[in-house]
């Protein structure tokens, strides 16, 4: 048998030059340059651990370099829980090869067989007390060469740091308030910009009274390019003051109507769509269906609602521009900027700086184009643009609303013999850099506008979009058809929000599973275990159930529910048990989760992601819904768009099932689907009501109870 040729990790295939990932720098330092960026998920620390392990250097020697199109490997976008998979594997491989090359050079210099050499914190030594180091040899070993598939990485047992909860490298700065966020960076000569955006959805700017702003001290420029208008001033206060005056003197068109927020399913199902059959399975020996359960589930538009408004800086030098951004994809943003500016990509440098958590495609990219356009009027000085809370909540893309219909055919024993799952939703991705037209907001506002990009769905091979996690994980369902209807209109702007369609699909699937188990009088955990064959899947369910002491005795006013998923059907396994208290309102008291991400590089980092995902999902389920009337988004503040507060946050208990021998996958989106379903199922357990429309509020429970009776 011929063993398959060893394969390079995808990020290394795209960026094979070793020196673009690793460099040994002065003072005994190691510079590691990933193409993925820190968005509060702790990725920089986990990647540093991987590099330190393979190179055998102390973590403290490693400098993690912020990604920039001027020098970093192009790793696309930091999203989809793929950074450990893509960047981690690439770094592990690149560092293993670098280590091998240095050992070979050391062997030559020291006259000792490479197999007898050892590396300790960068010092290479061998028998007879001979020694050298990475830094001594750096002049002899060129890393300006492409990675090969030859160098094997260490075995799990040989790694000192992977699998350990190393403290995050970025936390001290954040606790001691040392400037690290883009928001806190003051470039020399920095000016401040603000952009005027309409309240009415997609209104065009008809007239602007620019003269009135002249009285504002510190005003540098008023910029207008079609419906794009903004101000540049020497302080934030002056920019705000000028914007206020500009707003008063602006005349807008009537805009374009928004759907009826009280009939989202009706709207989604009445639009022109592109229909795709995602998966179909035909029963080998079809069984007679005695009845069919037909259920519809909906989820609303959900806001990313970062705590920080989006922010960017830009500075022109002749026909070249430098952009500082908290975008998740610096190269993708650069591609869109190049289209809008009609410049070669090489004329644009896009450099990452940390922002607040974004949870997907928010306005980070939009504000970068805003800054670039306003900076044109700044005569070479850098301009910083920061959105308002109002604009952040109304003009940034939202997670797409979904209507999901499932028909389950049941036999005489209420066993599932057929399953049809249909999704109506806008696409879940309209990120920049992936199409011939730009996805940036201002590109649709300038004098010669680009059409607003209708969001699409990533292909199934990348986990899909609206269809993510729509194919059941229950392998023994004999037949199914999964269909996705993607809207071809987009009155409400949508793009990637954590989990894309997985949260909605899992809410639907796992709610109906719970309902069918109840119909059979079968315990929902037992029902799931009976229908699963994958032992890793069964393990997370068993561990979560055991930890939650499933199923605690029935108590009045308390309910328990379960949910399970393998994210994207190929990623992390996660099971959740919710304990809720149902009285006037639903209160989630405790969430118990088990998760399997394969090798957990930084276990506390994984727990942090799962806890955070569980709490954010609880917020989505109990509270969140973008509000609008027929002309404008109306949830434009934290009062109109409440999120879960400290006093409402459940206890969260997480167990990781460590599997160091299995390639690691990301944890950031594993919890949302299972937690959503677990809460909904616990509400049924507590109140006897199936709520199929998110968020689960008091009104929704009353409506569902009335419908059921």
């Amino acid at each position, binding site marked *: 048998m011929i063993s398959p040729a060893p394969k390079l990790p995808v990020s290394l295939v795209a960026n094979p030059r070793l020196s673009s990932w690793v460099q040994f720098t002065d003072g005994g330092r190691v510079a590691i340059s990933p193409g993925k960026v820190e*968005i*509060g*998920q*702790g990725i920089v620390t986990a990647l540093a651990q991987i590099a330190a392990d393979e190179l055998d250097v102390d973590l403290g020697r490693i400098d993690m370099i912020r990604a920039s199109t001027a020098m970093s490997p192009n790793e696309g976008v930091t999203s989809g829980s793929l950074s450990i998979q893509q960047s981690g594997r690439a770094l592990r491989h690149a560092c293993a090869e670098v280590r091998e090359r240095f050992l070979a050079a050391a062997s030559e210099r020291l006259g000792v067989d490479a197999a007898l050499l050892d590396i300790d914190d960068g010092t290479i030594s061998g028998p007879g007390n001979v020694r050298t180091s990475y830094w001594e040899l750096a002049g002899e070993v060129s890393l300006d060469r492409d990675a090969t598939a030859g160098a094997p990485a260490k075995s799990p047992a040989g790694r000192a740091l992977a699998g350990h*909860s190393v*403290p*995050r490298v*970025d*936390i*001290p700065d*954040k*606790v*001691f*308030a040392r*400037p690290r*966020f883009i*928001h*806190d960076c*003051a470039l020399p000569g920095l000016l401040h910009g603000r952009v005027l955006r309409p309240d009415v959805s997609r209104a065009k700017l008809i007239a602007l009274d620019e003269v009135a702003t002249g009285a504002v001290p510190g005003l540098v420029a008023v910029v207008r390019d079609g419906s794009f208008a903004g101000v540049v001033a020497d*302080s*934030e*206060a002056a920019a705000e003051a000028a914007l206020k005056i500009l707003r008063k003197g602006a005349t807008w068109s009537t805009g374009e109507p928004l759907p009826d927020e009280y009939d989202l399913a009706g709207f989604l199902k009445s639009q022109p769509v592109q229909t795709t059959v995602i998966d179909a399975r035909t029963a080998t020996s079809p069984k007679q269906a005695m009845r069919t359960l037909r259920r519809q589930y909906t989820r609303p538009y959900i806001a990313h*609602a*970062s*705590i*920080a*408004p989006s922010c960017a800086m830009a500075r022109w030098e002749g026909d070249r521009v430098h952009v500082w951004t908290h975008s998740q994809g610096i190269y993708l943003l650069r591609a869109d900027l190049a289209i809008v500016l009609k410049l070669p990509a090489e004329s644009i440098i896009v450099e990452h700086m*940390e*922002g*607040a*958590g974004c*949870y997907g495609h928010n306005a980070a990219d939009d504000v970068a184009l805003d800054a670039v356009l306003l900076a044109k009027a700044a005569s070479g000085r850098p301009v910083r643009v*920061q959105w*308002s*809370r109002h604009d952040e909540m109304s003009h940034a893309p939202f997670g797409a609303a979904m209507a999901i219909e499932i028909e389950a055919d049941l036999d005489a024993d209420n066993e599932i013999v057929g399953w049809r799952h249909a999704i109506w939703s806008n696409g879940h991705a309209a990120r920049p850099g992936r199409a011939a037209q730009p996805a940036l907001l201002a590109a649709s506002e300038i004098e010669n506008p680009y059409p607003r990009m209708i969001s699409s769905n990533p292909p199934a091979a990348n986990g899909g979009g609206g269809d993510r996690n729509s194919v059941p994980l229950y392998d023994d369902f004999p037949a199914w058809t999964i269909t996705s209807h993607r809207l071809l209109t987009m009155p409400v702007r949508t793009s990637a929000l954590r989990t894309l369609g997985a949260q909605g699909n899992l809410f639907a699937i796992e709610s109906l599973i719970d309902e069918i188990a109840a119909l059979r009088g079968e315990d929902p955990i037992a029902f799931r275990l009976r229908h699963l064959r994958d032992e890793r899947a069964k393990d997370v369910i068993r561990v979560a159930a055991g930890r939650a002491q499933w199923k605690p005795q029935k108590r009045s006013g308390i309910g328990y529910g379960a949910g399970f998923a393998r994210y994207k059907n190929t990623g992390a396994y996660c099971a959740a048990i919710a304990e809720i208290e149902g009285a006037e309102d639903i209160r989630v008291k405790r969430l118990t989760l088990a998760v399997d991400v394969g090798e957990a590089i930084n276990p*506390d980092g994984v727990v*942090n*992601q799962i*806890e*955070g*995902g*569980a*709490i*954010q999902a609880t*917020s989505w389920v109990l509270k969140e819904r973008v509000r609008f009337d027929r002309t404008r988004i109306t949830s434009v*503040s*934290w*009062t109109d768009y409440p*999120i*879960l*507060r*400290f*006093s409402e*946050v459940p*206890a*969260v208990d997480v167990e990781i099932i460590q599997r160091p021998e299995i390639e690691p996958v990301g944890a950031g989106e594993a919890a949302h689907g299972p937690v959503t379903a677990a809460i909904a199922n616990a509400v049924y357990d507590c109140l006897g009501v199936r709520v199929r429309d998110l968020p689960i509020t008091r009104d929704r429970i009353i409506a569902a109870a009335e419908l059921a009776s």
Partner: protein
Amino acid sequence: MPSLQFRLNGAAIAVDVDPDQTLLDVLRSRLGVTGPHFGCGAGECGACHVMVDDRAMTSCDMPMWSVENKDVVTVEGLGTMQQPHPLQRAFIAEQAMQCGYCVSGILISAAALLKRNPSPTEAEVREALDRNLCRCGSHNRMVRAVLRAASEMAEP
């Protein structure tokens, strides 16, 4: 512009400002104190919390005239790498954040709580932090960190 005096992180200062300008804007743009963050500009998220005479207050909607002769403490005034406040030590020990943008405001709310109530219960900690929003879901870690700091401060 009138000169306005107040104490900032223990030092007396005077600035020439428009008395209606917000404290947050003056801290960040005039005084280079960037710990307090802008989040909403409406006093709804707590990212801009500072202590004014030992009480945690939003600075994004606080006019300068209202802090005249008051004692203002930002996260920079709590402690340093060399001499950290027990809360700062505890937030590191508990790895109590994801993105960390809200943390400077939360540290201030917690510090104000521990000043008036050195041994709070978990429920009291949650209540004291209820005006601070965290979007990443790091709440429970932060609560644990505050309780850890309180017990550390209680040790003789």
